[in-house]
């Protein structure tokens, strides 16, 4: 019995630039269990979106997957020919983006755009497709679905456009929905509605992989969280565990900066420094440059992603030492 919707193992992505190659996704393994919402957190440029794109099979022209496997419901998909992968996209695996303003074609009515998904993946008449589209509009709680069907994207608000995007992604009932910063461009009330909607979809049988830099969003909906830094997973745990006992110095730093706000402290606590340039990663742990507890070993060697307690993995030498003591 395979209850993993998505199973990524040791995934590497390289991007070839004029100068040399960089590896924005490095040895990433992650699972999305059926009927769960899984989050990936991290700063801008840590490889979150690249991971999602590699799973979708939509890397930029200069990028390629080299090494690792991606299994969708037990079926290896990285090696499939482009035509097969195209069939999967939209029907088995789908994605929504952060910018609902620009993700819809400005010259096609939104109803027609949703219909396109149906007509690509199933044999059905125009009327049936329209019926399904309207049903989907109601499911994602678009008011006055009939009227909205004939709207162009610029006639809708940001929240409605994101709903249309979700309808478009979900109309063929994919097994997995990847949501890349689904609420970043929306205001807080709409954000809450969209998150409710994602939970509702999860309950209806679609697993969701949320990518976000917003810890609040992650805490609110995710069952399990992966923290990424400079292309690698540095910590992974169930949401309560991670938020209760953040272990990696980077994760702790992230939480401190959020908590300093919550506790009304006058200054915002930050993690010193910036995300390292992928061309010039430090020899050892990629976080060593910004880590307050960095030791000699950290600068030389890359720590492994090791279990500190059941189902809680951390990539840090400090935690290993604690175990030894």
């Amino acid at each position: 019995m395979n209850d993993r919707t998505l199973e990524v193992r040791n995934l590497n992505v390289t991007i070839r630039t004029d100068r040399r190659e960089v590896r924005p996704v490095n040895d990433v393994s992650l699972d999305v269990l059926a009927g769960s919402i899984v989050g990936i957190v991290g700063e801008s440029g840590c490889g979150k979106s690249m991971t999602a794109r590699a799973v979708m099979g939509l890397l930029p022209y200069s990028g390629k997957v080299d090494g690792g496997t991606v299994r969708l419901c037990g079926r290896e998909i990285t090696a499939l020919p482009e035509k097969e992968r195209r069939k999967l996209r939209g029907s088995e695996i789908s994605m929504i983006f952060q910018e609902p303003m620009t993700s819809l074609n400005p010259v096609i009515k939104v109803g027609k755009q949703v219909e396109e998904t149906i007509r690509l993946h199933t044999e059905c008449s125009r009327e049936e497709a329209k019926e399904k589209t309207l049903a989907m509009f109601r499911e994602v709680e678009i008011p006055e679905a009939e009227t909205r069907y004939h709207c162009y994207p610029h006639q809708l608000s940001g929240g409605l456009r994101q709903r249309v995007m979700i309808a478009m992604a979900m109309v063929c009932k994919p097994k997995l929905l990847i949501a890349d910063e689904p609420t970043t461009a929306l205001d807080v009330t709409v954000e809450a509605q969209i998150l409710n909607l994602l939970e509702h979809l999860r309950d209806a049988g679609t697993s969701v992989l949320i990518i976000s830099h917003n810890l609040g969003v992650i805490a609110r909906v995710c069952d399990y969280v992966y923290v990424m830094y400079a292309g690698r997973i540095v910590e992974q745990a169930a949401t309560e565990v991670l938020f209760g006992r953040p272990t990696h110095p980077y994760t702790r730093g992230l939480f401190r900066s959020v908590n300093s706000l919550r506790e009304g402290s006058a200054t915002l606590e930050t993690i010193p420094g910036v995300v390292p340039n992928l061309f010039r990663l430090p020899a050892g742990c990629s976080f060593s440059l910004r880590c307050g507890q960095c030791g000699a070993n950290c600068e030389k060697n890359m720590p492994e992603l090791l279990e500190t307690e059941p189902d809680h993995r951390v990539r840090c030498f400090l935690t290993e030492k604690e175990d030894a003591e």
Partner: protein
Amino acid sequence: MLRTKQKRTEQAADLRLQSQIGEEERFGDLMRRMARENKTAVISFFVIILMVLAAALAPLLTPYEENGMDLLHRLSAPSTEHLLGTDEGGRDVLTRLLFGARVSLLIGVVPALLSLILGAVLGAIAGYRGGIADAVIMRIADVMLAFPSMLLAMVIMYALGGGILNVFLTLTLVNWANVARVVRAQTLKLRSSEFVEAAQIIGVSRNRIMRRHILPNCLPTLLVLFTLNIPASILTESSLSFLGLGIQPPNASWGLMINTGRQYLYNTPWLCFAPGAAIMLTMLAFNFLGNGLLDVLDPRMQKQ
């Protein structure tokens, strides 16, 4: 009083919204909407229809023959008998204008349309596929653009010989490269836009993305290019005719009429003036119609 007025404007706004997001539009609805938003465009539309009708019904509209010489009345001024006077062969200018419209309208529209289609398809392929397809198509376009278009047209016409079909072909070959350049640039911009990515994500194939998502977004640019190409084609044809490569006398085309009328410009300016005005009218009509169509066809241009 004030309240009723306010209510009325609200109702009007409601109606507008409904008309914008209503059911599938019929051609009549489209024209009605255009009439509301852009009157010049509708007038232009009827001017074009009128010109086409006049060209088609030319033999019925005039008592004279296209090439009916009347050497006794050559170069006569406009009168009730000859509304636009006669030319150097004593032929009625209005008659020749009507018959010339058949050739000139076709020469204006057909090559503009053909070069638009050819250029748009090749430009979109070059921009979207990139790589070898891009290199090959754009280098051919560069070669076409490197020659002065008149020279290129002359060379092709010499090679192919006269006749209206060859004029179509020549003008298409001369004009497509410009269209391709512009469409390629647009495609490059659109290719990386998020809605194209979104289309990929729902599993749309590359060809379909090009057809359904990229080309429709190029429509505004294409319409402008189309309206600009029409007068350019008419004028190039006139030059070709002048050089003896296009439409051959005694048959009439507007460009040819201007060119022969040029010699008598000082004494009988109407010989040039009439076909000149016809070309200008055609160009303006297509231009206004293009703008009007843009207003109603492109949802982004619609007034909120």
